[in-house]
């Protein structure tokens, strides 16, 4: 039986967000400001690709129409992707990349902490596994935010600018969703009601140390990952990421 239901959508939201964020990190290959940072970003990206695969495999089993993790990653169109708007945003400079990483890590960290106690054993297992990796990611990105925010005049300015560029997309990290409420009421996942507050608390804490100002709460606008209404950047990213499998279906080496 094909189950493209709310839980499947939720799994895709997790898988897609990890994969698209990882794809953006890959763009730094050969261009990072220092070798250590390049290794750091590639390692984080690799963790996220692995996590995406775990979520996709579960989603594919539920969809159960012959699809698999590769097909979900490489053969779906833009409107079918459920990743956060935040992660599809261009890398910009290192400040934008790190701020994006930090917002995402904090969201993942608190979300996975809740999900590791899910009644759905598969979700709990993937979350517990991923959380170990994400704990490292968050530690690293928090340190960078502090270092750049509380660094030189220029690095501070660039951080303020980065926050300015990215902040409006963070509404998705703190919004309440009826789907997730329904999922938690049906018992598949724990209640995520605490998530927005936990995310804000982490941002407040790190920004305070970084001498950065936390902007006012972002408001919703017409784009939304939940309905596949993405910013113009995702299509371009997918064109590159999916090229090989689209041009040479089932190519392998």
């Amino acid at each position, binding site marked *: 039986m094909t189950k493209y239901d709310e839980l499947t959508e939720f799994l895709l939201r997790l898988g897609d967000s990890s994969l698209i964020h990882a794809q953006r990190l890959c763009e730094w290959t050969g261009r990072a400001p220092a070798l250590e940072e390049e290794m750091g970003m590639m390692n984080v990206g690799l963790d996220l690709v692995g996590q995406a695969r775990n979520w996709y495999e579960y989603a594919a089993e539920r969809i159960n129409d012959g699809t698999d993790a590769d097909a979900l990653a490489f053969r779906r169109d833009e409107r079918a992707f459920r990743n956060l708007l935040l992660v599809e945003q261009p890398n910009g400079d290192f400040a934008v990349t790190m701020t994006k990483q930090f917002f995402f890590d904090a969201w993942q960290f608190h979300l996975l902490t809740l999900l590791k106690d899910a009644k759905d054993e598969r979700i709990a297992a993937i979350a517990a596994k991923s959380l*170990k990796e994400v704990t490292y990611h968050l*530690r690293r990105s928090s340190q960078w935010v502090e270092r750049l925010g509380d660094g030189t005049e220029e690095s501070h300015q660039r951080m303020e600018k980065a926050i300015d560029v990215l902040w409006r997309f963070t509404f998705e990290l703190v919004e309440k969703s009826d789907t997730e409420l329904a999922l938690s009421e049906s018992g598949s996942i724990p209640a995520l009601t605490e998530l927005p507050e936990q995310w804000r608390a982490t941002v407040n804490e790190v920004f305070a140390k970084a001498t950065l100002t936390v902007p006012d709460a972002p408001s919703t606008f017409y784009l939304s990952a939940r309905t596949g209404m993405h910013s113009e950047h995702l299509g371009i990213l997918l064109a590159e990421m999916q090229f090989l499998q689209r041009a040479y279906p089932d190519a392998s080496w």
Partner: protein
Amino acid sequence: MQAGELITTDQQGRSGNEADIQLAYDVLEEVMDPEVPVVSVMDLGIVRDVSWANGHLNVVVTPTYSGCPATEYIETSIRDALHEAGFSHPKVLQRLDPAWTTDWITEQGRNRLKAYGIAPPVGSSNKRSLLSGVTQVECPNCGSDDTEQLSEFGSTACKSLYRCKSCLEPFDYFKCI
């Protein structure tokens, strides 16, 4: 399901015993991690179960990191080594839960890492030590405690890069997760 199980009988299936399991463990002691070729899959603690089921050997492994590119290679190496040791169609199954922790690396594994020049994980993997990240790592070359972290991430996902302030050698540290 083994090939041929559907219609014909599984000609190569047989019943296994304690000696088979022991032999399998001996074989697994010799299957090395491709990235750190001095530690075996047993040293790493990624083999979670070895048993006999439906006429064949079953080995359950858990991945170290979600995106570890060595995972599939390791699974193939295990299958090949067991096949070579005479097991027909050994099965390697993946299990995520409970998630792998560096606490499962054996004493022998830790010693081998150190001898290879990689500092073994320090302390336990509890959440607090992960978040604070305060660890004192001993230099595998000279044994000094006076070391500093150069980079959170090293040559592979499981390591970070350190430097010894006494002997000035850089070294890999096997991260605690």
